[in-house]
C-alpha cells in the first residue's frame, strides 16, 4: 500500500466517520439524557434527505435545499418529541423500542405517500469533479466539502456542550437527570431542544449523503445500526465518545474493506480468499464493538457508571 493510497483511504474513513458522528451525536444525547431508545432517529435522517431533495428541486439550488431542510427537520423533530415521544420517557425500554419502531414504519409509508419511494438529489455541478490535493492524489471535491461540514459541526457541538449554558444543562442532564431537575433546570424544554438539535444533525447528514448514496425510503435503517454501534463503543451520553467512536468505525470499516481481502489473498488460496475476505471485512465493525464491550462494557467515554 503506497502512502498516497493510505492518505486517500484515511480521507474516506474520515468522511464516513464524520457523517456517522452527525447521526450518533443526536442519538447519544437522546439516549443519555432522556434515557430513551429512539429507533426512529434514522427516520429523521430520511426526512432530512427527502426535504433537502424536494426543496433543492423547488429552489433549483442544492445549498438552499440543505439550508431549508435543516430547520424544517429540527421543527419536525421537536413536534414529534412534544406530541408523542414525551409520553414514552417514563415507560420501560421495551415500550420505547416498540413505539419508535412503529414510528419508523409510519414515517416510511408517509414519506412514500408524499414523495414516492425515492427522489433525485445531485451535488452542485461545481463539485462534481475531483481536486488534486497532492501530486497523484485526486480526491472528489464533494467528499472534501462533506469533511469540512462534518468537522465544523463537530467543533460547533464541542463548543456548544463545553462553553454554553445549554451545554452545561445537557452535561448535567446526561450525568444525573434527577439531580439536574432538582437544581431547577427546565428539563422538558431541554429535551425538546436536544431533540431538535439531534434532528438538525440528522438532516445535515441526510442532505449531504443524499447525492453520494440515494435518497430513498428505508435509507435510515441500515445507517442507524452503525450509529448504535458508535454510541455503544463511545459510551452512552458522551459527545466526545460519539466523535471518537464514529471515527473508529469509519476507519475500521474503510480499511477493513480494502486491507483484509489483500491479507486473505496473501494467506489463503484464491478460492477461499474470494469468499472469506469480503465476509471477514463486513464483520470488522462488529468485532470492534465486541472487543470494546469486553474491555470496557460501559463504552470508551461513558458519562454514567
Amino acid at each position: 500500500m503506497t502512502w498516497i493510497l493510505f492518505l486517500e483511504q484515511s480521507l474516506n474513513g474520515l468522511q464516513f466517520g464524520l457523517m456517522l458522528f452527525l447521526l450518533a451525536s443526536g442519538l447519544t444525547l437522546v439516549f443519555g439524557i432522556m434515557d430513551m431508545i429512539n429507533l426512529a432517529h434514522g427516520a429523521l435522517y430520511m426526512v432530512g434527505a427527502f426535504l433537502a431533495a424536494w426543496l433543492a428541486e423547488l429552489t433549483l439550488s442544492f445549498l438552499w435545499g440543505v439550508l431549508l431542510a435543516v430547520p424544517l427537520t429540527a421543527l419536525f423533530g421537536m413536534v414529534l418529541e412534544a406530541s408523542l415521544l414525551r409520553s414514552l420517557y417514563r415507560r420501560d425500554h421495551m415500550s420505547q423500542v416498540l413505539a419508535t419502531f412503529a414510528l419508523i414504519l409510519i414515517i416510511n409509508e408517509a414519506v412514500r405517500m408524499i414523495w414516492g419511494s425515492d427522489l433525485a438529489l445531485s451535488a452542485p455541478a461545481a463539485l462534481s469533479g475531483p481536486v488534486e490535493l497532492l501530486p497523484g492524489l485526486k480526491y472528489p471535491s464533494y467528499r472534501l466539502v462533506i469533511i469540512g461540514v462534518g468537522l465544523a459541526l463537530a467543533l460547533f457541538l464541542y463548543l456548544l456542550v463545553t462553553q454554553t449554558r445549554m451545554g452545561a444543562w445537557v452535561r448535567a442532564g446526561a450525568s444525573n437527570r434527577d439531580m439536574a431537575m432538582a437544581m431547577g433546570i427546565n428539563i422538558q424544554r431541554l429535551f425538546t431542544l436536544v431533540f431538535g438539535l439531534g434532528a438538525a444533525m440528522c438532516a445535515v447528514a441526510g442532505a449531504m449523503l443524499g447525492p453520494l448514496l440515494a435518497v430513498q425510503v428505508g435509507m435510515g435503517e441500515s445507517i442507524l445500526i452503525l450509529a448504535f454501534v458508535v454510541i455503544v463503543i463511545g459510551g452512552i451520553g458522551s459527545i466526545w465518545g460519539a466523535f471518537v467512536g464514529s471515527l473508529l468505525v469509519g476507519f475500521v470499516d474503510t480499511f477493513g474493506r480494502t486491507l483484509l481481502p489483500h491479507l486473505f489473498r496473501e494467506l489463503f488460496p484464491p478460492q477461499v480468499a474470494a469468499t472469506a475476505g469480503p465476509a471477514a471485512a463486513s464483520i470488522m465493525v462488529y468485532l470492534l464493538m465486541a472487543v470494546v464491550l469486553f474491555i470496557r462494557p460501559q463504552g470508551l467515554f461513558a458519562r454514567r457508571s
Partner: protein
Amino acid sequence: MKAGRLLALSMASLLAASLVQASDKVKIGFVSTLSGPNGALGAEIRDAFNLAVKLNGGKLGGLPAEVLIGDDQFKPDVGKQLFERYVKRDKVDFMTGVVFSNIMLAGLPEAVGEKTFYLSPNAAPSPIAGKECSPYFFAVSWPNDAYHEAAGQYATTKGFKSAYLIAPNYQAGKDSLAGFKRYYKGKVAAEVYTKLGQLDYSAELAEIRAAKPDVLYFFLPGGMGINFIKQFVAAGLNKDTKLVLPGFGADQDIIRSVGEEMLGINDTAHWALDLNNAANKKFVTEFEKEYKRLPTVYAAQGYDTALLIDAAVRGAKGNLDDKEAMRRHIKEAKFESVRGAFRFNTNQYPIQNYYLREVQKDAQGRLVNKIVSQTPVLANHGDAYVQDCPMK
C-alpha cells in the same frame, strides 16, 4: 331433491361449457417484480409484453389473449405462490415474466411439475442450461453469462492489458465475473467482491486508482451500479480507466438516473435501440409512442416473448393441450425477433449475436445507448453448459 339434481345438472353443463371455452383463448401467467427499487425492471418487461399483445389486436396466435399479472415483490416465496396459483388454479397455458433468477428458480418447479411451459423473458441461470435443463423451460433472453462473456471478448479484442473486476458477493456476481474471465485473455489486476446492496464505493475506488487498470468491468445491478458510476466519475477515474459494462448496466433506465456521466461508456448486449432490422424499428417506435420513453433490453425481451408465444400458438393451430407438439412449435417458431435471427440450442437456450454498444448523444441531444457496429462481438454464441444437458 329434484331441485337439487336440476341444480347439479345445470352446474355440470355450465362447467362443460367453460371447459370448451378454455381452448378458445390463450391464458398467460405473468409474474414479475413490479414494486420496490427493482420494480422498474419488471414494468419494462410487462409494458413491452402488453404492447405486443395490443399491436396484435389483443390476440396471440389467432386466439384472444388473457394475461394474468402478479407482482412477486422481489420475494421468492411470493413468486412461488403466484406461480402455483396461475398454474394450478387458473390453468394457464404459459408462464413468463420473472426478472430475477432466484425468484424464477423458486417458482419454476410449480410450472414444470404441471407441464406448463415457462418462457423466460430475462432470468436464464446456468444450472438450467446444463444438468437441470427442462423440456418446459425456454430462455427467450440470453444465458446469464453471455453479456459478460461478450464483454470479456471485447476487452481481449481491444487489447486491454489489465482488467479490474467488481461484483457483489453473491452467486450471480461470481458467475458474471467467471463469464468475463472465460473470454478475457489479459491480466486480471484484481477481482473484488463487495457487500450486496453497498452504496458507497469510496474505498474500492481508491484501490482502483492505485491499481491503474486499463479497463474496469463491473456487475452491479440497479442502485448499486448507479452510485458506482456517479462516484467513479466524481473521483476523476474516468480519465484513466475505461469502463465496460454488461448491457443492462448502461441501459436507458440507468442513463435516466445517472445522466451525463454515462457518456462514452461501452457495454455489450444482444439487442440495441438502433439494431438494424424492421421488427426492431417498429418495436422502438411503437414503444416510445405508447409509453413516452425509450425501451431497455428488458423491454426487448418481453416483446420477443409475446411474439414467440404468438408464433408457437399459430404453429400449433390453437391446439394448446398437446404439450409435445407445442414444445416443437416453440422451438421451431418462426417470428421476426427484434434482436434479428436466433435459434434455440438443444438446451432451449438461444444461440445468437452479441453487440458492442456505447452511450452517446443522439440528434435531439438525448443520451441514448447506441450500437457501435452492426458486426457482433460474439456471433452465433451459445453457452458453456449445453454439453451437460441430457436433452437432444
